[in-house]
Every structure is written in C-alpha cells, then in structure tokens.
C-alpha cells in the first residue's frame, strides 16, 4: 500500500499530538448504596404483597442504624431474646455504614464520636464494654492520631479548624466573647448530651430564632466567625446557620468539654462500633427487610414486611421518623421534622497529592469550599509509611432548599459529582487527578435531622420523645439532630422502657 505524503504527515502529527497530551489517570466509580428507591416505594404507597406467614416476637425493632442496634444491644445484654430487628438495606449501620477494600476500611457516613463526657453514661458504658475506655483511661489507638485537623485559608494550611491566623483584633475579640457566652451556657447545665437531660424551658427563646440571627444580636459580624459558625452547623446539622435553631447552634459548642484530646475514631468511622454491636446481636438482625405497614391490633402490632406479618407486643421504631406517616396506620401527619440531603464519596488515592507543604491530617477543611472537606481513612493506621489511601469526602447540601437539592442529587449523573468533587479538591491539591483512581458516590436524600428554629421545643418532637405506649420512637431525629450519642441514647432508653413494661406485665 502506498501511503500518500499528506496521509503520512497527518498520521505523524497526530502521533506527536497524542504523545504530547499528558493523560490524567482514568477514574472509575459510580453511585453506591442508593436507598431512595426503597423509600420512594413507601412514599408512593406502592402495592406490597399481602402477608402469608405470621411470626410472633415480643419486640420488633425497625431499623438497623445505631439506635436500632443499641436497642438490640441493650435487650440482649439484659438477657432478653424474644425480639427481631428488621433492616431495609442489605448492610446494617444506617448513617454509620462503612466499606472495605484492599487498602483499608472507610466510612460512608458518621466517622467519629467526640470523647463522651461524664453525663453521657450509656456511651461510656458501651465503650467500657468494647475496651475503648479502661479504668478511666481512653485507648490511645481509638483516639484520633496527631495531627488531627487542618484548615486551608489565605493560601495555606493552619492546624485546627477554628480559624486562628489572619484575624483582626475585633475579630479575635468576637471569638473571645463567643467563647465566654458558650462557657456561661455550658455552666447553666441546659446544654447536655443526651440533650433531654438538660433541656430547660428557660432557653426556649433561643429556639425561636436562628443561630445566624442570634449571632447578629450579639454583635458578632466577623466574616471569619460567620464562616466558622456556618461550617459547624453544616457539619453537625447539614444546615446553614440562618436555618439552624440558635439553641442547636449553641448546643454544638456548649454540650462538649472533652477530658481527652480526641475524638474517638477508627478507619471505618463509626462503622467500627456497628461491627462490634453486630458481633453481639447479628443473630437477631434481618437485612433487606423493608417494613411497609404497621397496624395496631388488639394485643399489640402487626408489622408487615415482605410476605410476613410480625406480631409484636412492642415496636421500637428507629427508622427515620419522617417515614412514620407512610408506614404506620393512623399516624397522621408529622410536623417540625426536616432533613438535610447529603453526599459522601470515597476516593481511592494511589499516592498522596501535593499539599502546599503541610503534614497530612485526619480531617481536612477548606475555607473557600462549600463542602465539608475530607477525612483520611489511613490516618488511624500505625504504619509509618503510607502510599495508597482512601479519602471520605463529605458534602452537606446545605445552601438553598432541601427539596431542590434532593432533586439535584437524583438528577445529576455520577460524572457531574465526580467533576464537582475533583474541582473542589483541586483548590488545595493541584495534582489530585493524577492520584485518584476511583470515586464512589453515595447519595442520602434525608441524611440527618435539621434542627430549624422551633424544632427543639416542638410539641410534636417532645411527644414522640416521651416513649408513651408500646410504639416507641427512637431515631436520633427525635432529639432534633442526628448524632451518635443521641441515637444510642434513644435506642437504649426504648429498650429499657420495653424491659420495664414487660417486667411489670410478667413479674
């Protein structure tokens, strides 16, 4: 075959151009653990099969997150066996689910527990049982390794997330004043974990305005302080400060006074706790069991799941409470419960990227980013030399309407989120695209309760929190916000209540 001169030149120059383009690493991945399809079946009241079998248990726990597993842990620990836990997903753990690959385990959601104070008795009890707290000393390996956190601002990293560099004198003054105010709130005893122990009518006014408004009334107008307050609200509540109850904003700071440099964390985040709980109660846990109806009967409840009716004297409902109107017959409507949509992603890194000369830390936050930054799963490894790792990227879609953001989560494809994540990370790691080989994205439409103004002192919330009757609500959202300690507290309390009632009935 004779090659024309023109063709030859074309081929040659194409080859040259091809050689000169330095390819970014191909990045694999996709959406994982989607569960909104199941939720939408409930919402749309899809046709479910009618029951063919009947199973009887004294107690049915609905939901296998921290609250449900904690209820199971408590029942089991008290020697109670006649119960079953129904979990909609194939993997239990709820917001504390985790993943594992050949490099490390990594979290899909909640990734730490602040070192619990003396009032957080159930959490301390659990950690004593798990060996994390021994004779009053916290296990060094479960405490977050140094250096813990860093914040990128003004083109450099600083240690710690609270902005400390480049503050003007009046801004420093505002931080100091806020600290004094928080100190006073802490001393008042009204802001505790669990929140129920301290909740006091004297702070009801704080629930009537937003945290953003409250800060303004205190004369706090520093932009840096405002960023930090918003970051904290996004981090714990998935909401901006102007949509968070001032009571909740203050609670974030006033409820904790750690006795040890923490927090407690593990490579798989709170998935580590889920694993330990499952070691104890997995015999009672049924995965892939979507409860579609709960009906009151003469003696108790009929819980319908698949083709089975579970007949129970008690139901502990630990699924997100917003599902109750769709599942529980005669529940009516639910007010004052709002939720934040989230996105998390796990990135496999073949090597660590450039980082403007800073030591890698566990939690990494960028001031100019709308996201919450990322956590390094290998940080909690005792290895001295680390090459590959997994980063968990957190993004609370806090700005704008939750409904619109939920729609966005559903509509945009994986490529959109992949690009958004990489562009966000490129702010601080210019060569990130040469390091990442995989990005898996998890979408949560209703990730965590959003404590809007009015949510904490809401009648509806407080009624559910009372644990009246035999249908007990125990999701952390019953506290108004979704944190590990509240979920565990509500689960354990519900179990205690059941044991107490049954002891009375049978004793």
């Amino acid at each position, binding site marked *: 075959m004779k090659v024309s001169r023109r063709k030859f030149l074309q081929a040659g120059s194409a080859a040259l151009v091809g050689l000169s383009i330095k390819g970014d690493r191909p990045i694999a991945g996709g959406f994982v653990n989607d569960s909104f399809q199941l939720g939408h079946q409930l919402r749309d009241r899809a046709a479910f099969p009618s029951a063919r079998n009947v199973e009887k248990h004294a107690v049915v726990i609905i939901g296998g997150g921290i609250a449900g597993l904690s209820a199971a842990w408590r029942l089991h620990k008290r020697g109670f066996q006649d119960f079953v836990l129904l979990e909609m997903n194939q993997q239990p753990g709820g917001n504390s689910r985790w993943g594992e690959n050949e490099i490390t385990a990594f979290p899909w959601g909640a990734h730490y527990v602040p070192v619990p104070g003396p009032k957080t008795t159930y959490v301390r009890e659990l950690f004593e049982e798990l060996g994390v707290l021994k004779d009053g000393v916290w296990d*060094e390996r479960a*405490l977050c390794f*140094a*250096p813990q956190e860093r914040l990128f601002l003004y083109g450099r990293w600083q240690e710690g997330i609270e902005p400390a560099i480049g503050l003007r004198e009046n801004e420093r003054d505002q931080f100091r004043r806020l600290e004094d105010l928080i100190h006073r709130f802490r001393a008042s005893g009204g802001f505790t974990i669990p929140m129920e122990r301290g909740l006091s009518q004297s702070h009801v006014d704080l629930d009537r305005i937003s945290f953003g408004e409250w800060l303004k009334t205190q004369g706090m107008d520093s932009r840096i302080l405002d960023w930090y307050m918003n970051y904290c609200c996004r981090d714990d509540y998935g909401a901006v400060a102007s949509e968070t109850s001032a009571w909740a904003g203050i609670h974030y700071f006033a409820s904790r006074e750690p006795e040890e*440099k*923490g927090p407690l964390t593990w490579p798989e985040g709170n998935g580590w706790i889920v694993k330990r709980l499952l070691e104890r109660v997995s015999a009672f846990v049924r995965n892939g069991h979507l409860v579609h109806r709960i009906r009151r009967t003469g003696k108790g409840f009929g819980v319908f799941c698949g083709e089975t009716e579970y007949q129970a004297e008690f139901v502990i409902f630990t699924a997100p409470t917003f599902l109750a109107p769709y599942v529980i017959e005669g529940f009516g409507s639910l007010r004052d419960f709002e939720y934040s949509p989230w996105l998390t992603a796990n990135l496999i890194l073949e090597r660590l990227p450039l980082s403007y000369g800073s030591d890698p830390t566990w939690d990494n936050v960028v001031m100019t980013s709308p996201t919450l930054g990322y956590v390094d799963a290998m940080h909690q490894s*005792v*290895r001295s*030399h680390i090459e590959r790792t997994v980063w968990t990227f957190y993004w609370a879609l806090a700005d704008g309407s939750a409904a619109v953001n939920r729609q966005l989560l559903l509509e945009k494809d994986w490529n959109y989120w992949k690009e958004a994540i990489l562009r966000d990370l490129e702010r601080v790691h210019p060569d990130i695209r040469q390091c990442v080989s995989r990005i898996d994205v998890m979408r949560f439409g209703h990730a965590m309760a959003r404590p809007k103004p009015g949510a904490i002192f809401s009648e509806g919330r407080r009624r559910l929190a009372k644990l009246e009757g035999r249908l007990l609500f125990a999701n952390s959202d019953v506290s108004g916000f979704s944190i590990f300690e509240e979920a565990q507290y509500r689960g354990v309390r519900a179990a205690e209540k059941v044991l107490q009632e049954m002891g009375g009935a049978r004793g």
Partner: protein
Amino acid sequence: MGILLFITVLLIAACGLIYELIAGTLASYLLGDSVLQFSTIIGCYLFAMGIGSALSRFIHRGLAYRFVWIELMLGVIGGFSSALLFLAFAYTQGFQLLMYAVVVAIGVLVGLEIPILMRMVRERYQFRDVVAHVLTFDYLGALGASLLFPILLVPRLGLVRSAMLFGLINVAVALWSTFLFAKQLPSTQVLRVLCVVVMCGLGVGLAQAKRITAAAEDNIYADEIILARDTRYQHIVLTRFKDDIRLFLNSHLQFSSRDEYRYHEALIHPGLSAIATPRRVLVLGGGDGLAVREILKYPQVESITLVDLDPEMTRLFSTHPMLTALNQKSFLSPKVQIINADAFPWVDSNTDNFDFVVIDFPDPTNYSLGKLYTTAFYKAAARHLSAQGLMVVQSTSPMFARDSYWCIVETLKQAGLKTYPYHVYVPSFGEWGFVIASTHEYTAPTLLPAGLRFVSVDGMASMFQFPPDMSPMNVPANRLNDQVLVRLYDQDWKDISH
C-alpha cells in the same frame, strides 16, 4: 566571502543560545525549580538582546572594529560564565545576582551582533537579501545549538567545558573577522594578538575545567559522594572522606565510620551483657547491620530478627563491599533473619518473645516517625519481652534535644516500664542518649565481650550519670493522639540552631 559571512552568523547565533542554555541548566541544577529558572533566564536574555539591538543605533562608525571587540568580549564572558557561576555558588552568597548579570551582559552583546553585522554588509547585498540570509543562518545556528547542547555537549563535555568551547568559537569568529573585514579595520595587528591571548586563556581553562568543577563541588558537598539512591521509602546517600564513610538518610546523618563503634557499642552492650542467657534478639530499624555486628559478639545468641522498612537499605548493607566491611558481613550470618516491614504493624501482629529488643529508629522528625516513639508503640514492643527481657531505645541527644530525650524516657515510663537512661559521647553526633527499659530491675553488667573499643565495665557507671545541663526535664509522654515529642524535637533543634 558570502558563505563565510553566513557561517559567521550561524556560529555566533549558536554561541549566544548555548550561553543561555548553560545559565538555565546551571540554575536548575543548583537551585531547582527548572521551570522558573529557564523562564526567567530566557526572559532576561531576550530582553537584554532587545536592549542590545536598541543600543546598536548609537554605534555610528567603526562597525567592524566594534564587531570584533564584541566577539572578543562574548568569548571571555560567555566562555568563563559557567566556571564563574559554579565558583560563585560554592563560595559566595550572590549567585543569583551574578547569574542574571552575566545573562544580561551576554544578551546585550548578542543583541548588538546581528544589527551591526547586517549594517556592515548592507552595501554588498540588497536589503531584502541581507535580512533573509542573516536571519536564516541565525535561526539555523540556534537549531544546531539547541540540538547539540543536550545530546553532545552536556553529556560529553559538561557545562564548564561547553561554555569554554563556545567561548573559543566566539574568539575564533573575532579572529577571522579581522581577515574577513580587514579593509574596514584601522589596524588588525593588536586585535589579532588579543584574540590569540584570549584563545590561549580559554584553552587553558578547557584543559583545567575538571579542577574548577572539583573545587566548586568540594565546597558544595563536604565529602565525595560514593552512592546516592532514592528508594521507595527514603533518600540514601553515602559519602567518603579518606577513611570516613558517612550514611545519610533523607539528609540526616546516621553514622560516621570513624566513631560509629561508640554509638553501637553503647546501644548494645550495657543491655545485652546484663542478660544472663540471651538467646533471641529483635532489632527494629538498624538496617545498616552495625547493631547486629555487636550482637554477634555473643555466641549464646541463637537468632537475631531484624525488622527494617527498606529492602534497598538491607540489600546495600548485605552486598556493597565497602559497607559489608563496616558491618563485618553481619547480615550474612545464618543467625540473622531480615524482615522488610513497617515496624509498628509488625510488632502488633507478631507473637514471638525476645530476650533483648533493640529499638533504633531515625529521630522523631515528623508525625509518621513519631508514632514509633509513643506509649502505644512501647506497650506493643514490651509484649515481646521474655521474663529476663530488656529493651533499649535510641533516644536522640540529651544535650541538644534535652526535652525530647526526657520525653522519650517519660513515654517509656507511662507505658508501664522501668527506665534506665544513659548517655555517651559520639564525636560526629555529640552527646547521645539511650534508655534501657524493662519490667524488672536492671543492674549494669560486670562482664563484657572481649575486644570492645569504647564500652568498659569501669566506665559504665558514668554513662548513667547525667550532669546538670542534661538532667531530667518535666515533660509529658508522647501519645498517638498528642505527639508532643515531634513538637519538642522541632523546638529543641530550632533553639540550638538559632
């Protein structure tokens, strides 16, 4: 005459570009950040050429005479530029200033060349031919130079001799211009003599270039580098000065062969000699085999397990003749088992017991290494101690890093161990500290292996005494969640360096 003229253009273009490339390469070598160096040098050079071209309009008469002078000056400045810059880097603080001055000077001269040359020949040719031919040969010369430079000049001649060679070419152009433009020159004798003198100077420089670079490099690196290797884990450099071999890991001195016996005898014998029947020994770190060499002086020891991260390191110290001479082929002993692994996870997962555990890691300069100096690590390591077991830890200098040293002692205490701190003098390190730690009482040995050069039974008591300037400090323990040691260490060394 035409072709000769255009060859002249070609040569001077090549010379100009070569000087520019040499400056860029040299700056990249010595200062790093090649993008910045090349960009700024090319920028300065082109700008200076512009200045030269602009200045050419002020030259009215004596074009040929000035052209020869320009060539001569270029030959001298360009020819010696590389040697001058090398020496300036080695001996002065003003390397960058000088470099840009040289680049600008050469640029200005090169910028003058072509306009003057074009004006010199304008009567002989039509204007458009002059422009076309001169520029064609100018660019051809640049192409030739840019290809010659990386392929032949840098690898074969090096930077110093390449500059001198092209300096010679510049002067040769000057010399032959005195013939080429003889009619336009007032007198050629003086110029020709000057050219010959400069050529001799450059010729001598060319012959002596090796000595110039050697003089410069000697001042940059203290000693001759005999081996430099980037492994997956670290940068290994071995240097030699006469009989002194030094090992650097990531630029931190690990030992000097002149006095390492002091360090390694002190690391091993106070502990190992105090154990009644030591059979199994564990060494963590110590990939140079020098601690193992000392341990092999105990015939009762049946097995030595060495855990070092870097296989390249243990391979080097098993095979390189200069290094195996130092460690007396300790790694080739059948008693020695080498495991290349990360120490902390290995200590966590292994279940064996040892009578003596040697912990000899690099100093805690960062949080990754700092993990190996925590209560969590010492607790894990102590689980490997047999009933008669002792542990010894290299613990930085109690003199220069006094807080760090006592922090390590405190950390061992908080890990539940009894501690026995001691120190020795190692000339290349200064005062250096170690800690023996165990679950039971330690008493110093009364018998040592024969043939030790430093540690003696009589001298041992003084090693455990700390004078007031090294006495204990009140510092917290180092923990995984609060690595105070890395901060203390950083502060300690900052304090003594300034």
